[in-house]
């Protein structure tokens, strides 16, 4: 899907008359930003499910969603800086609310892993991380809603760009967004499978270690949730 999207970007979508070819960064930057922010909110929803049920699998899902969203957020900041350098002549514009809010959200979530790592007790770690995920997840739509209502935005708005241009722009953007969403879901499943396998292995080792010295390995402190 992403390959199709990128083929559409370079062979179907028109080159912007105002910005030129640099506008093509929009098709990777904006879907990544939207999926990353949705991932943060999804992390909060999954954390609510964890606190409601007490099932640690929800905590693991929340952790994976937030972890992947942080990776995408790094990509958003880097691709955004590359675009800003070409369009505005600066890597980062500090008086642009959209950019600063995204940076704040990113820095906020950058503390998620150290928070988890600082708590040794797995039960407590999962509970505190869920509270953090819910609080930070609520912060995301609030902040971006406030920024949307703010005036004097120089940062281009995705909705304006896709609706005011030709249909090929919105079609290419939607395919890119769908591709990015599917990539996010696929990588989430991939990481979940890996984490589940690691947990099962640890559990097997613990069970086998009950009889003799076999498998008596220290589990160590980890930011990743355990089942």
């Amino acid at each position, binding site marked *: 899907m992403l390959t199709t999207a*990128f083929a559409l970007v370079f062979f179907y979508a028109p080159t912007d008359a105002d910005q*030129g*070819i*640099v506008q*093509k*960064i929009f098709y*990777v*930057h904006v879907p*990544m930003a939207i999926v990353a922010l949705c991932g943060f909110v999804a992390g909060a929803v999954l954390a609510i499910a964890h606190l409601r049920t007490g099932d640690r699998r929800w905590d693991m899902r929340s952790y994976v969603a937030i972890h992947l969203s942080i*990776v*995408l957020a*790094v*990509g958003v900041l*880097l*691709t955004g800086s*590359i*675009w800003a*350098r*070409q369009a505005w002549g600066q890597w980062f514009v500090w008086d642009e609310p959209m950019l600063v809010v995204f940076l704040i959200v990113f820095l906020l979530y950058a503390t998620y892993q150290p928070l988890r790592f600082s708590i040794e007790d797995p039960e407590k770690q999962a509970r505190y991380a869920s509270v953090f995920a819910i609080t930070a997840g609520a912060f995301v739509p609030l902040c971006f809603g406030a920024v949307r209502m703010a005036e004097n935005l120089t940062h281009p708005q995705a909705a304006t760009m896709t609706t005011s241009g030709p249909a090929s722009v919105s079609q290419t953007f939607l395919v890119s967004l769908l591709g990015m969403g599917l*990539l996010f879901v696929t*990588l989430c499943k*991939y*990481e979940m499978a*890996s984490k589940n*396998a*690691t947990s099962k*292995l640890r559990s*097997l*080792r613990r069970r*086998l270690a009950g009889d003799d010295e*076999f*498998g008596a390995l220290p589990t160590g402190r980890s930011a990743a949730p355990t089942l």
Partner: protein
Amino acid sequence: MISPVIAATGDGSVAAAYLVFLFLVLAYLAIMAVKLARIEREVVQIVEDLDRREAAAAGAAPATRSKEPVG
């Protein structure tokens, strides 16, 4: 070094942005592949330890599980 023509038209920037995305995805997949390889090694180790344990339980006999390829 980026040529002035590329820098002026922004081709280099577009390529850089898409390469950043590609690099992030590939780096993520590489890290996950390393983790999966570690899981595989642990599974092999557990199987070998279980074989040893079964052999010991059978009374100092050689490993019962055949290591020869089937077919």
